[in-house]
């Protein structure tokens, strides 16, 4: 029989029952259902998040199959969030999955299906900087944003809080996206996404580890480096 106690018994051995309940009481928005989003969403569900909003307007494409772990070849051409919601709901059925098949455009549209007031935090699994900056602008006061980016065999993760950290926009200083398709491997995606996912839990429990620091992950020589970030000097 599937009960919360049994499904999460191994988690509770790592953290404790109180923290497990805190996860069950939390709602998270995962923006982007690509490489990072698939992995982050799956591990958050397996961690026992109570409600997970998953937003993406894309469809499953052939080059996605090297790293987007919720999709298989039979899903090609289908909406990502529909497939992802099916797979995530089938894991244990204890997390409410709310697929949002939409672009990130403005607060009001997001608010229709995803009440921002109930959201503990956003997870930035997006694949372009303009969308990241837009997501950051929508971040409610006191909510957290766990940002991650990945490319080739490296990536980076940090926690953003409007009241406590430099903004993502000042960190990247309006960095733009390259026009060419991005090279990226599955191992880098799953590694960066695992760290993002655990940092979400840290934030929910009030103990973020990457506040005002940027963790840089390099898989080629297995180096993890933290850069202490300067104080915010720009309002978003």
């Amino acid at each position, binding site marked *: 029989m599937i009960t919360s106690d049994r499904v999460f018994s191994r988690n509770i051995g790592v953290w404790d029952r109180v923290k497990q309940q805190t996860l069950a009481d939390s709602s998270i928005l995962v923006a982007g259902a690509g*490489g*990072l989003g698939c992995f982050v969403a799956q591990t958050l569900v397996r961690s026992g998040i109570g409600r997970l909003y998953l937003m993406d307007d894309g469809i499953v494409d052939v080059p996605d199959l090297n790293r987007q772990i919720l999709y298989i070849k039979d899903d090609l051409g289908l909406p990502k969030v529909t497939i992802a919601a099916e797979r995530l709901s089938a894991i244990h059925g204890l997390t409410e999955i709310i697929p949002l098949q939409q672009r990130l455009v403005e607060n009001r549209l997001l608010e229709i299906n995803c009440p921002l007031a109930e959201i503990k935090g956003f997870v930035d699994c997006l*694949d372009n900087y303009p969308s990241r900056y837009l997501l950051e602008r929508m971040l409610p006061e006191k909510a957290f944003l766990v940002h*991650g980016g990945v490319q*080739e065999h490296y*990536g980076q993760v940090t926690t953003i809080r409007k009241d406590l950290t430099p903004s993502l926009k000042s960190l990247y*200083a309006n960095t733009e996206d390259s026009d060419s398709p991005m090279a990226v491997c599955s191992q880098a995606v799953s590694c*960066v996404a695992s760290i993002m996912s655990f940092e979400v839990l840290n934030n929910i429990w009030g103990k973020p580890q990457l506040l005002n620091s940027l963790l840089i992950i390099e898989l080629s020589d297995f180096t993890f480096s933290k*850069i202490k970030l300067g104080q915010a*000097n720009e309002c978003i």
Partner: protein
Amino acid sequence: MITVNFYTTLRLMLSTKEITIDCKDQMTILEVLKHAEEIIEKSLSKNFIWKLLDEDGNIKLGTIIMINGKNILDMDGLECMVSPGDTIALFPPGGGG
């Protein structure tokens, strides 16, 4: 002394994690990069500025240059002043999701 840290593809390309530049006075970040390039050139016969700046000397797309954890593009760009004791971070951020 100014510390210059290389991350991800830059560090792999140069096989160098960090170098230090002896100095007593302030200099611009561009001057720091040129000093660092000279050191790398002498010790490893390698160059790296071409990875950061284009032919016109502008910072390339997808390049992060930080002084004490702040992006220079959010300050005075290549004219930013660097003081002894400062730490420079050079890396391309991962842009994918």
